[in-house]
């Protein structure tokens, strides 16, 4: 038992050393690890010599190994390459803006490359379900019962009237159908008019056109869940042939996650021409409202009266479907608004602490300073938009309720962090040359605040200004002050 525990602890210690070694630059890693392993061996050997090998000794070994992280960090600081990815942000204004532009381009590229984000973005802009209505017989107890015959649908489709722009029909096969070669699993397949997805403005992902040999096959659109579960999320699935029962279908693409809001669960939609649907088949009708129809449809549910060939009245119920979550740009703008409101509570936003005794910079300099600040904020907001999109819609759908919260949280936090940084950065940039002030020096003694000034002084490397930041804000010195250096300082900064 003691032996097993000892071996287990040894493995843990070796893993700790190996983990710490990853912090050490590659050129020194081998020797560093050799020394620590040798020392650990001697430590363990000394413990083994004692009669009682206790947990206390194992704990001492663990504490010894944990010290390796501090040593590794020292090596990293001393011998590392010193690559600091965000260093350009603290450099000259042009480098700072260029870096932000590059970051924006990278974020945009990610948005374009990530298939999930791209689809969700196009879906968000496509106004899916706008002015779409599900029509059912008013006498039916619920939305889930198919009540409208295909014959009735054809009649409406021929005579759309002034309230509707188009109709689509679908019915869900009962019982569920098995795919060829997998009798155990059964799928809910909907047979729908070929214009269903166009009518609802739902973009189909990975959309593929059929080859000439497959033209006679009907298209099938897979649900996102079905595609991930049974096809392993294969992005090259579009265009391949799927056999359901004894019929072949050509996979046209994948519907976005959560896009289906109609009654009954559906795994795939077979898009077939109207001629292929039986006239007596009962199903559901989806209608697209015209502008006049939209103005008449003032309630989420509206009674629709139709007149049959023998002047017989039929009552139907139209259920509006576009009560959807706000589009991503609206969520993003709300997040930015919240961040702007929260900013004064989290960061100092004051920018005008100039010394009254010194001269003020020219108008052009002031314009440049505020232009730089505006450029930073604009780029940060755009970066925030794309990063929050990437973070929110890589794994969630526009139709998912979580995506709204996730998008709001990410856009708010990134915007707040970004704006706080922009304010902090601007406050430490020389108003004359816009370079960051450097060489921080502590001045005065904190305990003598009432007798003298204490705080930090920073100087512009170009020799333009000196920045005083009080350690403790007082009534006579509450915010930072700039002191403009006159020509007598120039000899100190020749060449900078």
């Amino acid at each position: 038992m003691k032996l097993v525990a000892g071996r287990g602890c040894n493995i843990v210690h070796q893993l700790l050393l190996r983990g710490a070694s990853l912090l050490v630059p590659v050129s020194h890693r081998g020797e560093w690890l050799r020394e620590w392993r040798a020392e650990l061996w001697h430590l363990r050997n000394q413990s083994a010599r004692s009669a009682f090998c206790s947990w206390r000794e194992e704990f001492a070994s663990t504490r010894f190994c944990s010290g390796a992280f501090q040593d590794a960090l020292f090596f990293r600081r001393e011998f590392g390459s010193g690559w600091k990815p965000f260093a350009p942000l603290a450099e000259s204004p042009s480098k700072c803006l260029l870096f932000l532009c590059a970051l924006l381009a990278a974020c945009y590229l990610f948005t374009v490359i990530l298939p999930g984000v791209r689809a969700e973005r196009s879906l968000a802009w496509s106004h899916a379900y706008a002015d779409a209505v599900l029509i059912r017989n008013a006498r039916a107890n619920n939305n889930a019962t198919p009540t409208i015959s295909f014959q009735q649908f054809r009649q409406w489709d021929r005579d759309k009237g002034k309230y509707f722009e188009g109709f689509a029909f679908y019915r869900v096969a009962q019982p569920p159908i098995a795919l060829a070669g997998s009798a155990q699993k059964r799928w809910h397949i909907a047979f729908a008019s070929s214009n269903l997805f166009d009518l609802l403005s739902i973009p189909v992902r990975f959309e593929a056109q059929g080859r000439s040999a497959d033209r006679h096959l009907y298209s099938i659109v897979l649900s996102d869940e079905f595609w991930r579960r049974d096809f392993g999320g294969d992005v090259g699935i579009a265009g391949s042939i799927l056999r359901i029962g004894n019929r072949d279908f050509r996979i046209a693409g994948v519907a976005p996650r959560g896009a289906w809001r109609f009654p009954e669960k559906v795994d795939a939609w077979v898009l077939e021409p109207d001629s292929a649907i039986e006239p007596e088949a009962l199903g559901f009708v989806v209608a697209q409202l015209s502008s006049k129809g939209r103005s008449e449809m003032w309630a989420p549910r509206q009674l629709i009266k139709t007149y049959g060939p023998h002047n017989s009245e039929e009552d139907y119920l139209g259920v509006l479907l576009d009560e959807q979550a706000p589009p991503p740009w609206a969520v993003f703008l709300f997040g930015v608004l919240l961040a702007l409101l929260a900013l004064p509570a989290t960061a100092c936003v004051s920018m005008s602490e100039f010394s009254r005794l010194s001269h003020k910079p020219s108008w052009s300099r002031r314009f440049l300073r505020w232009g730089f600040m505006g450029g930073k904020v604009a780029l940060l907001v755009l970066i925030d938009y794309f990063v929050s999109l990437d973070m929110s819609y890589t794994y969630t759908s526009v139709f998912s309720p979580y995506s709204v919260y996730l998008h709001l949280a990410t856009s708010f936090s990134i915007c707040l962090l970004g704006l706080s940084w922009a304010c902090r950065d601007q406050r430490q940039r020389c108003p004359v040359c816009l370079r960051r002030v450097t060489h921080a020096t502590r001045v005065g003694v904190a305990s003598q605040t009432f007798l003298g000034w204490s705080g930090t002084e920073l100087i512009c490397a170009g020799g333009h200004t000196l920045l005083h930041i009080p350690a403790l804000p007082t009534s006579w010195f509450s915010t930072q002050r700039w002191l403009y250096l006159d020509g007598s300082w120039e000899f100190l900064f020749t060449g900078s």
Partner: protein
Amino acid sequence: MAQDAKLSHTAAMILQAIDAGFVYGFSIMETTGLPSGTVYPAMRRLERDSLIWSRWERQSIADQEQRPARKYYKLTTAGKVTLEASRKRYPLLARLIPSAEEKSV
């Protein structure tokens, strides 16, 4: 490192320990009572400042004793001078970690 360089108490203790004959990292830890996270980085700094130097012991010796080879540390000339200055600054240093000669006396 100049002769009048001022070392921290920790660095001075490590120099004193090495001078006293504790030439391995773990033995310095045991002598000074300092944790590994303090001793090793401090030794790196001392080596960087050329106050000590390190060398791997010969593999044949380690193989003979059936153990891994260790890296040992020695004071440089500058290190010895700095240690002398530190002893004046920290008079208790020599009493805390007596050197081999002092022990024999």
